[in-house]
C-alpha cells in the first residue's frame, strides 16, 4: 500500500533529523539558538514591560533572540511552575516575582524559591499607603488613629485576597500592634481597579506601590502618606518612610528577578548573569525604569538566592499572623 511507503519515508527522515542535531549541537558557544523568557503575568502589566525591555537589551548582547512568552493565570502559579519545569538547558529562563514566596504558604502549590537557579534581581518597588485626596487624613498617624477608633470601618484594596499589598497593610498594622482584620481587605484585580475604587469612594486605603499610583498622585486625586521602605522614593521625596512617620520600621515590596530552572550548568548561569549585569547597567534599562517610575535593585547569583529566601520568610510570617496560611 502507498501509505506504508510514505511511513517508511517519514521514518527515514525522522532518523536523519534525530542523528544530525546531536553532532551539530556540539558546535557553537552558548547560546547558539533563541532563548525563551517566561513571564507569569499578562501582556501589558509592569512585569511584562520589564521583561520585554530586558529581553530586547539582552538579545543585543548575546546575539540571539530572547522571546518573551506570557504564561498567565492562577495568581502566577501557572507561569512560575512552567519556569521550574522547563528543561534546564539554558534556553528557557523566566521572570520570577514576589508571589513565589507567597503562593506555597497558601497551599496553592508546593513550589517555592528553591526550585530555581537564581540569576539576577532587577527591580523592587516598595508598598506605600495611598488615600483619596478628598479624605481627611494628611499623614499616617491620623489614619492609624481613625482605624484604631473604628475597627472594620475603613476598607483597603489594590490586589487579590492574600496578594502582596494585602500583606503590606496587614503587616504594617500588626507591627503597630493593631489587629490586621481592623482593615478588611476588598479583593481587586490589581492596583489600577483598586485605585479607581479609591477615587470613586468605594474603599479608603490602597497600599500599592508609588509607580502604580503615579498618574493619580500627579493629578492630585490621591495622596501618599508613607512608603514602606528604608529610603524615600526619589520621584516623590515629600512622602516619608513608615519609620519617619510612625517610628516603626516596616519594609515590604514587590520585586522582580530573572531565574532559571534548577540544574542549568554553572557556565551558562555565569554567561547569563554577566549579560544581565550589562543589561541592568545599560542606559536604556535605567531610563526605561525611571521613566515608568519603577525602582531598580541589583543582586545576582547567590545574593539573589538569599534575598528570595529572606523575602519568603518575611511573607510567610505575615501570612501566618493574618491567617492566610494553610
Amino acid at each position, binding site marked *: 500500500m502507498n501509505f506504508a511507503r510514505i511511513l517508511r519515508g517519514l521514518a527515514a527522515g525522522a532518523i536523519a533529523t534525530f542523528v544530525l*542535531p546531536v553532532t551539530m549541537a556540539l558546535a557553537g558557544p552558548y547560546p547558539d539558538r533563541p532563548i525563551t523568557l517566561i513571564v507569569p503575568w499578562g501582556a501589558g502589566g509592569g512585569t511584562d514591560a520589564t521583561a520585554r525591555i530586558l529581553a530586547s537589551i539582552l538579545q543585543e548582547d548575546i546575539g540571539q533572540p530572547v522571546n518573551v512568552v506570557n504564561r498567565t493565570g492562577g495568581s502566577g502559579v501557572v507561569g512560575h511552575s512552567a519556569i521550574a519545569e522547563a528543561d534546564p538547558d539554558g534556553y528557557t529562563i523566566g521572570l520570577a516575582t514576589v508571589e513565589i514566596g507567597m503562593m506555597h504558604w497558601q497551599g496553592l502549590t508546593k513550589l517555592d524559591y528553591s526550585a530555581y537557579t537564581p540569576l539576577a534581581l532587577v527591580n523592587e518597588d516598595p508598598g506605600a499607603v495611598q488615600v483619596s485626596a478628598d479624605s481627611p487624613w494628611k499623614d499616617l498617624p491620623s489614619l492609624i488613629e481613625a482605624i484604631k477608633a473604628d475597627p472594620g470601618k475603613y476598607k483597603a484594596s489594590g490586589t487579590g485576597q492574600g496578594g502582596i499589598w494585602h500583606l503590606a497593610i496587614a503587616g504594617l498594622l500588626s507591627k503597630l500592634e493593631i489587629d490586621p482584620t481592623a482593615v478588611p481587605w476588598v479583593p481587586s484585580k490589581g492596583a489600577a481597579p483598586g485605585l479607581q475604587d479609591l477615587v470613586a469612594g468605594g474603599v479608603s486605603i490602597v497600599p500599592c506601590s508609588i509607580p502604580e499610583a503615579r498618574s493619580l498622585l500627579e493629578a492630585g486625586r490621591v495622596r501618599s502618606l508613607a512608603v514602606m521602605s528604608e529610603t524615600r522614593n526619589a520621584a516623590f521625596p515629600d512622602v516619608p518612610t513608615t519609620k519617619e512617620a510612625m517610628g516603626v520600621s516596616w519594609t515590604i515590596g514587590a520585586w522582580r528577578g530573572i531565574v532559571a530552572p534548577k540544574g542549568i550548568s554553572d557556565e551558562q548561569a555565569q554567561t547569563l548573569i554577566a549579560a544581565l549585569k550589562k543589561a541592568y547597567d545599560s542606559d536604556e534599562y535605567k531610563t526605561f525604569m525611571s521613566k515608568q517610575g519603577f525602582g531598580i535593585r541589583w543582586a545576582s547569583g547567590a545574593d539573589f538566592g538569599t534575598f528570595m529566601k529572606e523575602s519568603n520568610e518575611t511573607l510567610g510570617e505575615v501570612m501566618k499572623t493574618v491567617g492566610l496560611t494553610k
Partner: protein
Amino acid sequence: MRFNDAVLGGALLVFSIVIGLWSQSFPAIPGQEYGAAVFPATVATGMGLCSLVLIVSGLRQKGVALAFAGWAQDWRGFVRILVVIASVVFYIAAAKPLGFIPTMTLVLLANLKQLGVGWLQSIVIAIAISLLIQWSFGDLLHVPLPWGILSAYRF
C-alpha cells in the same frame, strides 16, 4: 444527534446538583459572609430550575430519547468526527516530542484524506501549511512552537 429535552434536562439537573454540592465545600473569605461558594451555587440553582422546565417540556413533547437525523443516519459521520477529535488529541500528545511541523503535517494529512482529497494534493497541502504556520506564527509572531526532532533545522 438530537436528545429529547427531558433527557437533556435530566443530565443538566444532575450536573447542577453536583456543582451545587461541590461548591458548598469552598471556604468563605475570612471574616466575610460571602465567599467562593455564593456565585457557583447561585448559578447551579438557576441551571437546576431551567433543567426542570426542560424536563417538563420534554415529557410533553414525547418522542424518542435520542433521534438520529441528517448526517447521524450514516455511521461514517461518527467515524469522521472521531478522526477529527483523535487528530487533535494526537497533536496534544505528540507536538512537543515530535515537533510542530511533523505533527501538524500528520494531523492535516489525516483530515484531508478522510474528506476524500487525493494523496499528492494532501501531502503538498499538509507540508505547505505546516511550514507556513511555523514561519508566520513561530518566526514572525514569536509563538514558541516546538521544533522537536527538527531542532537542528530551525529557521
